[in-house]
């Protein structure tokens, strides 16, 4: 069924179709309409879930951590400072390997206060041990939420589904909404091996020593470092799982097929613009215009940021002459985080394209298509002159 709704509602209907059991959330712009919609689903009886209107984001994630440990499929959503207020909880959720799914309607981070879109909130949370997925339109938001539960529960790692605040969260566009039966065929009920259960009492997330230690059966139990290494290994392993789940999703729903990067006119491209979120779609219009002028350029949207699909990125980019990384965030005092990751992925390639870094749209600064055209043109024409220093697009002072 095709519906025209906001990105937040596209997310909410995905959460509903996933038969989520516990939802906890605290209002923050621009995520709020998503959780309003979920509370409407729950109160109206459309979704038989527990909805906990908590007193803070920190508590929202606490509820999810506990309910997931207790064996219930759990969801929350937030933005910006709300995400950052959860920070220690996010580490906790990853370290305890809980398959929580969280939507983040991306928003710039204060100070100064801003409610508008950029990616600084989630990019600053890249090292948690969470999986981070980015969406470019409402169909991707809706599908990614459903896929995220399957992914999280397969690899026992929480998943963040990120989409641009306002640009996607508040914009209405059509998307295909599947039937409940299709989703049920794709996503089985959550059935963890261990959960809070008096019949098999276990103590979760106890203090863990630096060294290994025997358990009560005489087997060696890991120390902190082994547990952390396992999280990393499984995150790397999740790359394969993302591809597999994308395939399974495609078989049932007929959508997908580009799990890591979504290329547009990249096959013969000398130059590739590389970015995340709705920006990758906006650049398509610029690519079309530049192609008409004879420039062999394409654009690629990265859908998985953590774990970083370095092999896919290298394979996709190594053969072109130049890569222009456009980002709505910055690792302050250095470069764009995505830029650094792309360069790192390309380091082992036999031939390496030049890589430039453009910072765009911070705090909702309007990204004009003409500005993107100018930036891409400048990058291509000034390969040598532009170094590693981030270039700023759309500055007015």
């Amino acid at each position: 069924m095709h519906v025209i709704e906001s990105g937040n509602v596209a997310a909410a209907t995905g959460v509903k179709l996933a038969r989520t059991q516990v939802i906890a959330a605290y209002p923050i712009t621009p995520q709020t309409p998503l959780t309003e919609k979920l509370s409407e689903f729950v109160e109206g009886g459309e979704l038989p879930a527990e909805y906990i209107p908590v007193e803070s984001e920190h508590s929202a994630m606490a509820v999810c951590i506990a309910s997931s440990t207790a064996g219930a499929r759990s969801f929350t959503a937030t933005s910006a400072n709300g995400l950052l207020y959860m920070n220690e909880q996010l580490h906790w959720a990853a370290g305890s390997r809980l398959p929580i799914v969280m939507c983040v309607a991306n928003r710039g981070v204060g100070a100064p206060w801003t409610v508008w879109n950029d990616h600084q909130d989630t990019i600053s949370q890249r090292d948690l041990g969470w999986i981070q997925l980015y969406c470019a339109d409402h169909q991707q938001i809706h599908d990614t939420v459903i896929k995220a539960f399957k992914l999280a529960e397969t690899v026992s790692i929480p998943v963040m589904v990120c989409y641009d605040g306002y640009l996607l969260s508040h914009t209405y566009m059509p998307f295909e909404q599947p039937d409940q039966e299709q989703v049920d065929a794709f996503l089985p009920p959550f059935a963890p091996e261990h959960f809070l259960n008096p019949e098999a009492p276990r103590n979760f997330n106890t203090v863990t020593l630096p060294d290994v230690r025997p358990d009560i059966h005489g087997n060696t139990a890991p120390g902190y470092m082994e547990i952390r290494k396992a999280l990393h290994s499984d995150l790397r392993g999740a790359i394969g799982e993302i591809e597999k789940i994308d395939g399974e999703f495609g078989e049932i729903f007929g959508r997908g097929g580009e799990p890591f990067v979504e290329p547009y006119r990249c096959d013969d491209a000398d130059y590739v613009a590389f970015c995340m979120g709705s920006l990758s779609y906006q650049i398509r219009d610029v690519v079309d215009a530049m192609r008409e002028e004879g420039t062999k350029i394409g654009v690629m949207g990265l859908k998985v940021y953590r774990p970083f699909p370095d092999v896919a990125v290298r394979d996709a980019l190594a053969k072109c002459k130049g890569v222009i990384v456009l980002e709505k965030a910055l690792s302050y005092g250095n470069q764009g985080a995505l830029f650094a990751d792309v360069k790192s992925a390309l380091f082992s390639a036999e031939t390496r394209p030049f890589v430039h870094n453009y910072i765009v749209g911070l705090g909702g600064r309007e990204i004009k298509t003409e500005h993107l055209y100018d930036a891409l043109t400048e990058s291509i024409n000034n390969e040598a002159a532009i170094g590693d220093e981030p270039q700023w697009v759309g500055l007015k002072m």
Partner: protein
Amino acid sequence: MSKEEFCNMISISEPGPGDGGNTGSWRVLRPVLDTTKCIPAKTGKPSCFNCWLYCPDGVVTKTIPPTIDYTYCKGCGICAEECPSGAITMVDEASFTKEEK
């Protein structure tokens, strides 16, 4: 390639005694019960059991006479202090032989 098994390696503990080791080794003073003074022991009837009630470590049994698990007793002396008949005395641990320990 997709990974077949995702090892769910987390900190998840199973109940067992002696997480802190044989905490009886912490003891400096050992509670020793004089069954001639202990009320349940003397009367042969269930009564008192203050030593059992107040023990922070649950190492005293609610039996006639009460027994103390010296493997885990930390020697705090609460039982001796709360015994209404003065049946428990705290004795220097050093005065016991290896076998007695």
